[in-house]
């Protein structure tokens, strides 16, 4: 009953205006996912880019400080973030520490992603005992006291980058495995797989060259989101004392050092590195979430 006046640029005679299109759910979803992705990229970029450039930027020495300059609050004397108890510039320590943390995070995610996707697709495709074993492992891992086991393993093998990477990878492989498994379960029933079987392709070939590329996009989004978790886990381990050793800074280590001090008013040692971690993780999560909005087919539609 309402006769909307058609805009001049429209297909004449329709009610659908560009304005209406812009307000539609699909367009809004697209717009919001873009906002999220941009916001996420900015947040993460603000952290990642300086960290990557830490060797190149004109920063002060993160390892040797001058005792006379100990515990200066932020914005004094050319120290943007202040100094720690040994007189070392906090900004520099945070950026250099970020390199260690990011390195561990990326490596761990690569390893856990690889393991998870492989295990999940094998379990999803073959079913049977492989599926049982993988599912049982997934379930068992969920009920383990994870942090304790990680601490124990680090205590056992020593806190080196390799060990911590592996430990975080083990903590994280369930996520990609589960997702991959359920995706593969769905893909398996599709006609092209049956066709491939009929053509005599080996099952592993089917998995590797047909199925995985189809689900890779969705699985990779999950893996990407794991990066944030890996960084969080690494800082938690450092905080509890199981991180990479002195005098190289790690984010969790800096916070742990500052633990005793915040009560006497030196709040920056604890809040600023945490803020950096939070910013990075929020950025990665936002970006990944926006990405997932783009990539996912809604549940109702599938």
């Amino acid at each position, binding site marked *: 009953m309402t006769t909307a006046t058609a805009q001049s640029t429209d297909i004449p005679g329709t009610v659908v205006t560009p304005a209406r299109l812009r307000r539609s*759910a699909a367009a*809004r*979803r697209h717009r*919001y996912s873009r*906002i*999220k992705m941009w*916001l996420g990229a900015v947040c993460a970029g603000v952290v990642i880019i300086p960290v990557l450039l830490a060797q190149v930027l004109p920063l002060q020495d993160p390892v040797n400080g001058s005792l006379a300059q100990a515990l200066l609050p932020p914005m004094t004397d050319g120290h943007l973030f202040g100094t720690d108890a040994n007189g070392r510039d906090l900004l520099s320590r945070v950026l250099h520490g970020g390199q260690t943390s990011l390195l561990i995070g990326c490596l761990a995610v690569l390893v856990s992603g690889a393991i998870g996707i492989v295990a999940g697709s094998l379990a999803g495709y073959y079913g049977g005992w492989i*599926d049982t074993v993988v*599912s*049982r492992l997934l*379930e*068992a891992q*969920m*009920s*383990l*006291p*994870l*942090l*304790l*086991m990680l*601490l*124990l*393993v680090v*205590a*056992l093998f*020593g806190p080196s980058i390799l060990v911590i990477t592996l430990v975080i990878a083990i903590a994280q492989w369930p996520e990609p495995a589960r997702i991959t498994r359920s995706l593969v379960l769905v893909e398996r029933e599709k006609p092209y797989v049956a066709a491939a079987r009929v053509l005599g392709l080996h099952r592993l070939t089917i998995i590797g060259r047909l199925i995985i590329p189809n689900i890779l996009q969705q699985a990779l989004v999950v893996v990407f989101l794991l990066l*944030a978790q890996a960084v*969080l886990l690494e*800082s*938690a381990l450092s*905080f*509890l*004392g199981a991180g990479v050793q002195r005098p190289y800074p790690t984010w969790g280590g800096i*916070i742990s050092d500052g*633990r005793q001090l*915040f*009560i006497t*008013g030196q*709040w920056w040692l*604890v*809040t600023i590195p*945490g*803020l950096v*971690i*939070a910013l990075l*993780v*929020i950025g*990665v*999560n*936002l970006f990944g*979430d926006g990405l997932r909005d783009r990539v996912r087919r*809604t*549940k*109702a539609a599938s």
Partner: protein
Amino acid sequence: MTCGPSRWSGPDTVSYVLKRLGQTVLTAFLTILTVFVLLRLAPGDPAYNYAPPNPSTEQLEAIRKQFGLDQPLLQQFWTFLSNLFHGDVGTSFQFKQPALQVVMDRLPYTITLAIAAIVVTTIIAVPLGVWMARRNNTAPELGANIATIAGQSMPDFWIGFVLLIIFAVNLSWFQPSGFATWGELVLPTATIAILQIALISRLVRREMVANLAAPYITVARSRGVPERDLTWKYAFANSAIPVVTALGTRFAAMLNGVVIVEVVFKWPGVGALVVDALQRRDFPLIQATVLVTVILALVVQLAVDLVYPILDPRVRLGEASS
């Protein structure tokens, strides 16, 4: 409603429960075994931690003997197992009391924290998630969406410290550690809850969005069912299952995972106990803690699984559990 065979009767269900119980016992056993072995392989000398300062070889040997650490590994494990059947998990090196007793003394504090966190989470996250689903793809929801992503991204120890700095040090509303009055419960619960609310509300939103888009909702709407009923009695009822499962899983995970919060707030619970015990290599105490928390977590998960048929009559235990 016609009553068919009760969804809980029948050989299927019984065998399912038995199977799950068996799996629980097996998982617990394997976990304990792993912890047992790892502890004894780790470098570090427990005797040194309980010896007088600068101990001589003799003194260390005497302590090792007292703790039973001088025996071969298999022997130690056998002793441990046979004691376990009598309900004795060993005597804590540090406290000189039955390790199980020490753990059970502190377990209620951890449970209090976990329960408080779950209750707060449920109360806030569920309505929030539903609201986000109803307002999906609108600007306010975008804000809430970003806020929840932020909520699940912040490191929990950092949140704890920030809250401490603001409320305990600067405003002095709360004590920063220990558990002397109920007031101290607030900050640790808030720290845990922020993360959990973010996760659960997003889960609720995801499920609700999917359900609200389903055809039967459209049909019901066209029949004139009011929106509120559609939201709560129809869509939410169907979303309840994964949400309850998630809440149950989160609770079980919390029993294992409030370690960091307990350390930051010096909560007299099991998490702080075990971190300390690990540093001192108090083997019996670590083993007892792992045993108790693993069993508790598995039991909670089993309970959640058993509650399933109540929530969704379509589910039959023992089938399609993949």
